[in-house]
């Protein structure tokens, strides 16, 4: 019964999306945005949000009670699973995750329909029509080829279980985070298409779109950060980023969203970069679709472990062509109707932001190229691999200069500025960079990229706070605080990456009980190894006592775990965290002579990578809160709104007198 309710809600939502599309289209065609059907557009969008939530909650319920008559539950769940993983199993599969996707999408649509009043009604109608158009594709996908509520004629006695690697609390909430990010980018895409269709690429459009981009970007940042940490502790080899195609698929939308965020603030504050902002809006959403396609279709070499369905791939490809191809063609046809925006000089806030945009876009291009190149050569029967030795240096060519500009950019004024005005903070940052550069290069024999990374991170860590210098801190808008914090987060993450690759120590040993192992400043003793059993696994656990530099002993209990539904071996590593890094301990198999394989890494400052990611997200959240509060305040005093009276993401900094 519940499954049928869910399915009915889904069908109704799709019907409402059709209504929203038609009404929105009719409204967009009318000069004032009002047409016979257009009054129904907003209620249709709001009701969809409600119905999709019902559909999604129905599926959650089916998983919670392990209703094995539903095919999806039978394939992906198991009555023996802990409750939390039954619930997360709802979206731990293709159909459920697509349902989550459309649900978030419908909620976003409903929210826009309910609260957004700043845009011209015509543009608004075009935007909601575009939103409905995008949503319809996903409804069709879900209902026609991935129905999550399908019943089985014969009810199995027990379910198949969930991949043990997914039975992890961090991972249970990882995919939804990314989906929310993707959906946010689809909203930005709808706004871009709406603005394009009604030729209204204005600062107001950028201001309306920006919170959505910002929110999407925050979630993507968290998603990537959490995913990286998960890979780090779950895979058992100490790596945190592999440039795997699937990782790249999640990085590309983030890069595009970061660029979009910055170009939108130029458009909002200075009415420049109009076409470029629209272009990025299209690219950001297309990257999330391309990523979804690559992961789900199974065309990448790495995806062979999946039961992938080529039909799904074709469907997503169809949507991709329809949305992105369509938007690009409209764009190209409309190009001559969008006037070029305001001009600015080389040394100006805009100039710095253009550099940021070019660098981010170039990195995006490189990641896209490197990810897809093996696919291209395969079409000609040549197989190549592109991995870290390519991505790291080639990406750095753009990333490191971008960090340099990042130190200076936020200090510059809009439109035109002089270097002489900001010479003091620039000189300070430059001195720090050079000092660290020389110090590290003399002290240690480490790679050039790590040296540059450490030096630039140190410089940026200071320079990122310079915009607050000589300001009344309490009256400084939250958005400025957010920007400084996010840029500081970049410095922290960069420092972590460079330090980990420069100073990491590795120790692989076969140890008997009682043996002492040393790695870097750490000394550990293997006390015992014992067997353990959990709800759906057994494990061998190594019990070690480890001390840092002769300090107090701490326990480390890495496990080698065997799951049985389905069967799989995983490594549960032990992590000993200090302020200055982490000791990473994994236990492998027992050798024939009875000794145990121990793998230890001392990874100085590795945690800074994820702290940095969180700081970036936190900075984004501060900026978002600041913006929303500002918007609300402005709405209250809507009578005397001045277009240039807004709080820009990177407001002008008063010159240090």
């Amino acid at each position, binding site marked *: 019964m519940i499954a049928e309710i869910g399915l009915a809600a889904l069908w109704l939502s799709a019907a409402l999306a059709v209504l929203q599309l038609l009404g929105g289209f009719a409204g967009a065609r009318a000069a004032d945005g009002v047409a016979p059907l257009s009054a129904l557009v907003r209620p249709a969008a709001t009701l969809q949000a409600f119905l999709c939530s019902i559909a999604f909650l129905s599926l959650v319920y089916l998983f919670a009670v392990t209703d094995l008559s539903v095919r999806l539950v039978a394939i992906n769940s198991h009555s023996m699973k802990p409750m939390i993983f039954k619930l997360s199993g709802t979206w731990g599969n293709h159909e459920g995750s697509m349902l989550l996707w459309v649900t978030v999408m419908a909620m976003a649509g409903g929210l826009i329909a309910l609260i957004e009043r700043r845009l011209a009604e015509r543009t608004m109608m075009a935007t909601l029509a575009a939103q409905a158009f995008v949503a319809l594709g996903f409804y069709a996908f879900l209902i026609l080829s991935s129905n999550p509520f399908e019943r089985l004629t014969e009810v199995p006695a027990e379910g198949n279980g969930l991949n043990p690697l997914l039975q992890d609390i961090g991972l249970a909430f990882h995919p939804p985070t990314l989906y929310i990010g993707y959906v946010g980018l689809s909203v930005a895409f709808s706004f871009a298409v709406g603005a394009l269709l009604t030729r209204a690429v204005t600062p107001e459009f950028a201001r309306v779109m920006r919170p959505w981009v910002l929110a999407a970007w925050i979630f993507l940042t968290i998603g990537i950060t959490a995913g990286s940490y998960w890979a780090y502790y779950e895979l058992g080899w100490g790596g945190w980023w592999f440039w795997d195609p699937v990782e790249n698929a999640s990085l590309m939308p983030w890069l595009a969203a970061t660029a979009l965020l910055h170009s939108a603030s130029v458009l909002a504050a200075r009415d420049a970069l109009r076409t470029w902002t629209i272009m990025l809006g299209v690219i950001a959403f297309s990257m999330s679709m391309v990523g979804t396609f690559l992961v789900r*279709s199974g065309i990448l070499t790495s995806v062979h472990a999946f039961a992938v369905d080529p039909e799904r791939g074709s469907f997503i490809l169809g949507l*991709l*062509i329809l949305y992105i*191809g369509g938007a690009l063609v409209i764009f190209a046809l409309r190009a001559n109707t969008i006037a070029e925006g305001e001009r600015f000089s080389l040394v100006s806030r805009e100039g710095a932001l253009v550099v940021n945009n070019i660098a981010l876009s170039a990195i995006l291009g490189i990641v896209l190229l490197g990810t*897809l190149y093996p696919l291209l050569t395969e079409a000609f029967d040549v197989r190549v691999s592109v991995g870290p030795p390519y991505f790291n240096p080639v990406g750095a060519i753009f990333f490191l200069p971008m960090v340099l500009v990042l130190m200076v950019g936020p200090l510059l004024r809009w439109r035109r500025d002089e270097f002489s005005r900001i010479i003091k903070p620039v000189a300070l940052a430059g001195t720090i960079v050079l000092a660290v550069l020389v110090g590290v290069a003399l002290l240690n024999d480490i790679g050039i990229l790590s040296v540059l990374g450490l030096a630039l991170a140190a410089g940026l860590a200071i320079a990122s706070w310079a915009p607050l210098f000589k300001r009344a801190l309490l009256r400084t808008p939250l958005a400025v605080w957010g920007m400084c914090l996010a840029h500081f987060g970049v410095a922290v993450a960069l420092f972590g990456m460079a330090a980990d690759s420069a100073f990491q120590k590795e120790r692989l040993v076969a140890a008997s009980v009682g043996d002492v192992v040393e790695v870097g400043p750490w000394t550990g003793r293997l006390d015992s190894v014992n067997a353990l059993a959990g709800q759906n696994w057994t494990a061998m656990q190594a019990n070690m006592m480890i001390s840092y530099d002769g300090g107090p002993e701490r326990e480390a209990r890495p496990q080698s775990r065997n799951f049985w539904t389905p069967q799989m071996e995983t490594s549960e590593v032990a992590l000993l965290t200090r302020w200055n890094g982490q000791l990473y301990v994994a236990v492998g198999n027992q050798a024939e002579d009875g000794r145990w394989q121990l793998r230890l890494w001392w990874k100085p400052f590795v945690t800074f990578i994820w702290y940095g990611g969180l700081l970036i997200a936190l900075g984004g959240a501060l900026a978002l809160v600041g913006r929303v509060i500002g918007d609300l305040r402005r709405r209250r005093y809507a009578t005397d709104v001045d277009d240039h009276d807004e709080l820009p993401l990177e407001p002008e900094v008063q010159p240090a007198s």
Partner: protein
Amino acid sequence: MKTLRILLWAAVLIASGLFGLFGYQLTQPRDEFVQSALVGQEIPPFDLPAATASRPGLTSADLADGSPKLLNVFASWCVPCAAEAPQLEALEREGAQIVAVAIRDRTEDVDRFLELYGNPFTRIGRDDISEVQLAIGSSGVPETFVIAGDGTITYQHIGDIRPEHVPELLEELRKAGA
């Protein structure tokens, strides 16, 4: 304006190319096999001890004794290797000389495997650390190489041998000079 339009149409073109590539790859069967780049070249020198008491070990010299052979890379712990046993028997009945390398395998396991699934091999080398497997560019079990009489690798079959592959392998052997 004009440059912008050209750039935008270029973007449409790039996107179309991308979609075309995606569409093409969707229609292609996924081929996960890594071909050996040594096909057409001489087999590298090696010398493996016997994997079982019933057959001698295998050296590269054995593969250059003038008569073409099949070199089967297998392991007792590999399920498809058991599945291809009837086809290897069939190849042997058709007159193929088959030698083998057992990957990461114990003598008692090899013995049991041969007892269960038959022994069409004249020699079986024991490769505990996949060194010969790596040396000839093989990336898994089972794989079957055709080696000409002068020791040149002329063909590589990846995966288990299905009945339809038997004539193909016999043809390759014939081409190699049998």
